[in-house]
């Protein structure tokens, strides 16, 4: 206990609070490394939140809920992919539209689910491991999605670094004309990357409504999608730094909640602002510190590709 705050609880909370943003940012990172800027993360998250919630409540099965959340996010992402990759619509405008569309549609779909409780997502049972003091509480007391998100970061890191498919994905994001000239299917790779990104965002959204809150309220993502986007940029498109950014965001969120609970005389609005401000500032400092030798974004990011040119 320091200043009325239990550090063990704080760290355990931090991991839960970070998971939605971490999932969304990891997915967006893959999409951006393939050269597509999808600003619709917020829209995909919230659609995942409502879709996952609705399915979980109707089936009383949390697993099906998460699956549905991922599918909702992916469907929205594939809509984005169709518009931007096949019909060559502007990526920024389409992404913004996707967010607005997701927010509106989720409000409509979620009307009848307000005030309900979702089925519980159980913690994984690690047996005696959970009883280890401090560490057990921090590491072995979470539900499976928390661990999945961490595994996903590691998998994405390894995929981009060590596999041929990852190399092709990076190549497509780096120079789509050259990749096309070498015979790689630029649009197919981008569809896959966007689909994965959408599924991750949807899963993150479902985690919000099924575990983190847990209930459905309109607009409940509250800008988490935008934070995920910012994290990807300031993390210089590196999975390991995305993890740092997301945990920082989650950490401050958890901390400010604890501060509020501990009755500190800091205005609530300042506390609610804190996670956003601290995350952005920290990531800006990080990217300044790494500016020398740090790679810029994927060179083809946000540029339209058409095979004829």
């Amino acid at each position: 206990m320091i200043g009325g705050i239990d550090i063990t609880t704080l760290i355990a909370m931090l991991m839960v609070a970070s998971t939605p943003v971490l999932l969304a940012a990891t997915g967006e990172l893959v999409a951006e490394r393939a050269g597509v800027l999808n600003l619709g993360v917020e829209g995909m998250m919230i659609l995942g939140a409502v879709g996952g919630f609705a399915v979980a409540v109707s089936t009383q099965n949390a697993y099906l809920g998460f699956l549905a959340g991922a599918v909702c996010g992916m469907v929205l992402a594939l809509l984005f992919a169709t518009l931007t990759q096949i019909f060559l619509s502007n990526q920024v405008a389409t992404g913004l539209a996707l967010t607005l569309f997701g927010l509106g549609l989720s409000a409509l779909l979620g009307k009848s689910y307000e005030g309900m409780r979702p089925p519980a997502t159980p913690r994984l049972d690690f047996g005696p491991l959970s009883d280890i003091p401090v560490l057990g509480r921090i590491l072995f007391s979470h539900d499976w999605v928390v661990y999945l998100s961490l595994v996903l970061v590691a998998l994405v890191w390894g995929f981009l670094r060590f596999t041929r498919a990852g190399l092709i994905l990076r190549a497509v994001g780096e120079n789509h004309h050259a990749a096309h000239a070498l015979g790689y299917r630029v649009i197919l790779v981008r569809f896959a990357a966007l689909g994965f990104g959408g599924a991750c965002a949807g899963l993150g959204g479902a985690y919000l409504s099924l575990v983190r809150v847990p209930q459905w309220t309109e607009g409940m993502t509250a800008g988490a999608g935008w934070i995920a986007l910012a994290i990807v940029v300031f993390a210089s498109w590196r999975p390991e730094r995305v993890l740092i950014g997301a945990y920082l965001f989650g950490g401050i969120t958890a901390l400010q909640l604890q501060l509020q609970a501990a009755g500190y005389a800091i205005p609530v609005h300042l506390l609610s602002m804190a996670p956003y401000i601290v995350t952005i500032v920290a990531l800006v400092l990080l990217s300044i510190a790494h500016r020398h030798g740090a790679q810029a974004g994927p060179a083809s990011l946000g540029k339209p590709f058409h095979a004829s040119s």
Partner: protein
Amino acid sequence: MSDTLLTIDGLTKAYPGVVANSDVSFDIMPGEIHALLGENGAGKSTLVKMIYGLVKPDSGQMHLHGNPFAPPEPRAARSAGVAMVFQHFSLFDALSVAENVALGMENPPGLRQLARKIREISTQYGLPLDPARRVADLSAGERQRVEIVRCLLQDPKLLIMDEPTSVLTPQEVEILFRTLRQLSAEGTAILYISHKLEEIRSICKRATILRGGKIVGSCRPRDKSARELAEMMVGAELKLTDRAERRLGDVVLSVTGLDLAPLSQFGPSLKDVSLNLHKGEVLGIGGVAGNGQEELLATLSGERPSASGTVTFNGRDISTLAPNARRRLGVLTAPEERLGHAAVPAMSLTDNTLLTGCVRQPLAPHGFVDTRATKAFAEKIIGAFDVRTPGPQVAAQALSGGNLQKFVIGREVLQQPDVLVVNQPTWGVDAAAAAAIRQSLLDVAARGGAVIVISQDLDELMEISDHFAALNEGRLSVPHKTDGLSIEDIGLMLGGAHGMTPADAPHGTHAAHDGGPA
């Protein structure tokens, strides 16, 4: 004809509005270095893209080793033994050499084993490469080595090379040719596309000439002069540039002790650059791109003002003046990058005319655009420089590179400059258009103007310039009279071959120059 490697029979490919290839037939023998000649837009690129599987022919057949060959995609062509080195390198800047090579292979081994193979092959062919380096940090010559090594690792039967020498120093070209001859001796056929006719004469056994998408002839390049080859390409007699004896006048532009910080993170800085330019003089500045050419042009144009006292025009210090103030005085420039630097891609030719022309021409009196005068001036450029376009209302990006280049040079030349600085005036421009551009530069000098031509094409500089200086790592050599300079002297002025010494020749030796440009 069972011993031919590749037989092409009646290939035709039409795009909306143009027939890129019409009934093209020829064949390539194993181990042969075969030249494909033609002007810009003659259909060479489309033809090789069909061979490489990037474009599907509308009709016609190809046979490889006597078997039908119709690659649906580059992958199929590669596995059949056809490899290609692109004109604009298909490399990924942010990736390492080994990763770039792996992307061009069907079944690459693990990166560590691949790195070993890259080292092996690259030394075997005299093209040393470090597999771990990032491509962004490599020179143009080294980038090309990456492309070539990528092809060689797949043991190709036919290697297609599109304009491979346009970015190389003479010594690098010599080493490339040695590699190509070695490959040819080992039985690999090479289909070689280039605008540089002397090169083709020195290395190719046979040439096929395309004009307007059709084959108009074939020949043994060694039996023809470069001029005859050019005339076969163009289909008309070629005008020689008229290089009348010029008298040099007073110094009009001088640069003294110019130092300049790099423009970009990896760019070179200019170090103590000095030169004097006389009335009526053409000064050629050679060197491989990326050695300070862009920086020098930016300083002279006013885009990047320098310390006061470093650039004087007719005795007046213009170092800190902005581009328009310099234009007003008569110092005009045409940068290398046509789209986005010399011209705004999405704007019409008329609008692009206005952008640099309104200072010296009455195109926008009192700040209002005189559309009629601007259009008339644009039409004058189009007419005088034979720019092939439907009209001045066409967007700059719709023109082919060569045509836009003619427009950009014409726009400056017709403004009667006292000093004209051009960077890479004929890059990617075909023989006839290049000759016209060179002539116009000579005309500026004949009229009493002074011209600085920055170029990587040494033959071009030898042809038109009175003095030659080399720019290497931001330092400018002392200008020499071009009469009496040999291509080897120039190569040494350029700082040699940037580490491209073949294994069998000690560093610094002149490469033998059998049959090369004399």
